[in-house]
């Protein structure tokens, strides 16, 4: 009789022990997988790829005249429409006349689009990858340029001149 009880106790203990082992295994497995995911996410966040402006969809297609006038009419309203928090501002395709072609201190091509009679234009900075696409461009030509807006146009009293809309990460858009 006593032996039987003992045997039963041992048996049930074994079951509990077995169950506990299983539970611990599940818990540690879950924790392990969670940790791997957390590290992967942290790693991704840290090495987050930069925004690929040219592959992203165009938010607005406007002429250089229209966007300059929108800014001159109400800069706050235009900023609310085009600028985004965290700097991922709207991607624009701007059509306008090429009035100057230059190079900045980072060897990036800068194309100023400005239609005659406008107070300001759109300054488009290309990238190391897209620079060569500007080679055939000529002053006076009408082109369409896609890029991300960084800041708007406006008259600055201290500079005593009109500032252009700034577009960066640019490339030409073939029509």
């Amino acid at each position: 009789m006593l032996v039987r009880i003992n045997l039963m106790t041992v048996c049930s203990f074994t079951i509990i022990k077995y169950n506990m082992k299983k539970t611990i295994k599940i818990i540690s497995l879950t924790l392990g997988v969670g940790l791997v995911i957390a590290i992967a996410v942290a790693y991704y966040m840290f090495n987050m790829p930069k925004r690929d402006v040219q592959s992203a969809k165009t938010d607005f297609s406007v002429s250089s005249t229209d966007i300059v006038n929108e800014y001159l009419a109400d800069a706050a309203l235009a900023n609310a429409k085009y600028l985004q928090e965290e700097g991922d501002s709207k991607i624009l395709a701007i059509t306008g006349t090429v009035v100057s072609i230059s190079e900045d201190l980072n060897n990036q091509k800068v194309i100023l689009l400005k239609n005659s009679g406008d107070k300001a234009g759109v300054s488009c900075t290309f990238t190391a990858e897209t620079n060569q696409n500007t080679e055939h461009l000529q002053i006076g030509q009408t082109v369409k340029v896609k890029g991300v807006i960084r800041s708007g146009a406006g008259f600055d009293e201290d500079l005593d001149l009109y500032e252009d809309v700034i577009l960066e990460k640019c490339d030409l858009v073939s029509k």
Partner: protein
Amino acid sequence: MKKVSVIAVVFAIVSLYAFKPLADKLVSKDGHISFFSHTALEDITANNYKVVSTLDKTTGDVVFSVPMQSFEFEKALMQKHFNSNKFLDTKKHPKAKFTGKIGNLGDIDFSKDGTYTATVTGNLDIKGETKVLNEKATISVEGEKVTLDSKMTIVLADYGITFSGGKPSTNIAKEVEVTVKSIYAKQ
């Protein structure tokens, strides 16, 4: 006789305006501003090539306008943090501005090639906070080309940029080193 003097006065006024030299104001749309933050944990650099600046050779007025979203970081996440409303809030404050004056204008000869040291005093406005800056700049004259170089330290807390906790508080220096370069051409 009266007529002659009227003509003379008109001529004098007209010529005053005509000779009020517009060309004295130099404009730069070709510049570079970078900042560098160093801590034991991390070095952070950002570059901006869209600074617009003017330099008036007769009054000594110097102005810089910096589009804040044009700062490019090595890491995309840093750039997001920089622009976010916790730090520079660039949607609300898209531009930073410096308006100042060269104190020792007499020491700089814009008509003679050379390198001159200028003392510049003025107001720097970042994120709606204005602080007085007193810095040295190097002005190089090379024919028609005028280049301004300067290096300064900016205390982030002066402009309401503070980090209370987390990674930014340990990885971003409290003072950052800012380097400015502008190449001016005649307007």
